[in-house]
């Protein structure tokens, strides 16, 4: 474990299966924040719950380390564990979240507020992302934040690659439509700021 950068996740998992604590620590450092953010977004920005769920995921990694096939991708495996944990939570709270719904009807009013800055864009982005149904949101986060390949997302979500493609296309269309106004205004505010900087 002299240079952890050259050790693959799968090799680390192999060491973890033998009870190597340092291997676990490296894996934890690599994935803890990623899993935390994934949970954070999936749980509608509930950080406390996201922290708890992240712990649960790593507990499962320890408990089920022996079940992991070191010939397969660890990244896909850990995100599958995380996604399933989230899914189980939503299933048990079905009255709050509808997992299977693919309806993305937007309830919020599209009225434009007065201050259109980056914060506003981010706020609207959060709103729009949170309004996405579970599956679309999961696809969106795994693709645009985790930079996972379509095949990997398909494996995590246990569905065909074609479904992932159409979901991504659908999400980008919705977000492009909903955030277009904010985007234009945000860009214009940036231009104004830049011109101000030049003037100064």
């Amino acid at each position, binding site marked *: 474990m002299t240079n952890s950068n050259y050790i693959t996740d799968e090799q680390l998992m192999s060491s973890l299966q033998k009870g190597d*604590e340092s291997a676990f620590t490296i894996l934890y450092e690599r994935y803890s924040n990623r899993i935390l953010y994934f949970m954070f977004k999936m749980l509608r920005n509930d950080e406390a719950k996201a922290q708890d769920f992240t712990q649960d995921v790593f507990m499962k990694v*320890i408990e089920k380390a022996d079940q992991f096939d070191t010939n397969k991708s660890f990244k896909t495996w850990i995100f599958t564990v995380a996604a399933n944990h989230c899914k189980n939570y939503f299933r048990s709270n079905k009255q709050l979240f509808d997992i299977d719904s693919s309806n993305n009807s937007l309830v919020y009013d599209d009225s434009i507020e007065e201050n259109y800055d980056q914060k506003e864009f981010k706020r609207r982005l959060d709103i729009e992302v949170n309004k996405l149904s579970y599956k679309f949101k999961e696809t969106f986060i795994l693709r645009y934040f985790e930079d996972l390949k379509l095949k990997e997302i398909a494996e995590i979500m246990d569905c065909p690659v074609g479904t992932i493609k159409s979901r991504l296309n659908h999400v980008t269309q919705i977000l492009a439509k909903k955030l277009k106004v904010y*985007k234009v205004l945000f860009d214009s505010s940036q231009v104004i700021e830049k011109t101000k900087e030049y003037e100064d």
Partner: protein
Amino acid sequence: MKTKLTELIERKSFNELTKEEQNFVLSEISEQEFNEKHELISQVKGELKSEASQLKAKDSIHLNALAALREKKDRESVEESDKEKGGAGFFAFKIPLWTAIAAVFMIFILSTPIFINSEFDQNKNDELLALVDTVYVDKIIRDTIEITQPADTVVKMIYTSRDASDEITELPATIESLDIKVNETSGEIIQYNSQSSMSMGSYTSTFDFKSSDTGESLSEDKIGRVLLRIE
């Protein structure tokens, strides 16, 4: 095709595309739509990353996970040692020396022919039992064996005289008093009130009445006389 378009949107702006790629994109969507999606995705990515950088997993998660890992390791090592103990436990089990000697002595004593066969006789060993391996023994088995045994029951009649004081003062039983109805033509008894007859003797049930061997004989009994038409 759509995968390629998605990848291009995510990676490049329209101006960064090659001529070939531009032609491909224009065959699918407009330049404006392409640029809009590209900018949106790159901005969303940036937003997500900046938001993620503000979040950090708690140290307690790592500590708790490590504690769980150590606990698991301990549990597994205990299980392994238990397995090893289970395998060699029989042979590793120690007993005091005197117990071992006593056990061997007992096995030796109990395995001697004296204890195995109490009728063991040393002289019998010299006797010749058979000259061949197989001995055929012919035995006639009869289907029916009749065994005649003398009767073991002796009937002894004892006659005793009664005193006048032993006489039972009661009215002689009649057909009317015993509530017996007799068919006049055939002479068969149609109805017999056994309850009243039993109340006169020592019988408690009709079964006793018939099978008792301790009472008077039927010919001596008053009811019996009536029944047998002696009176």
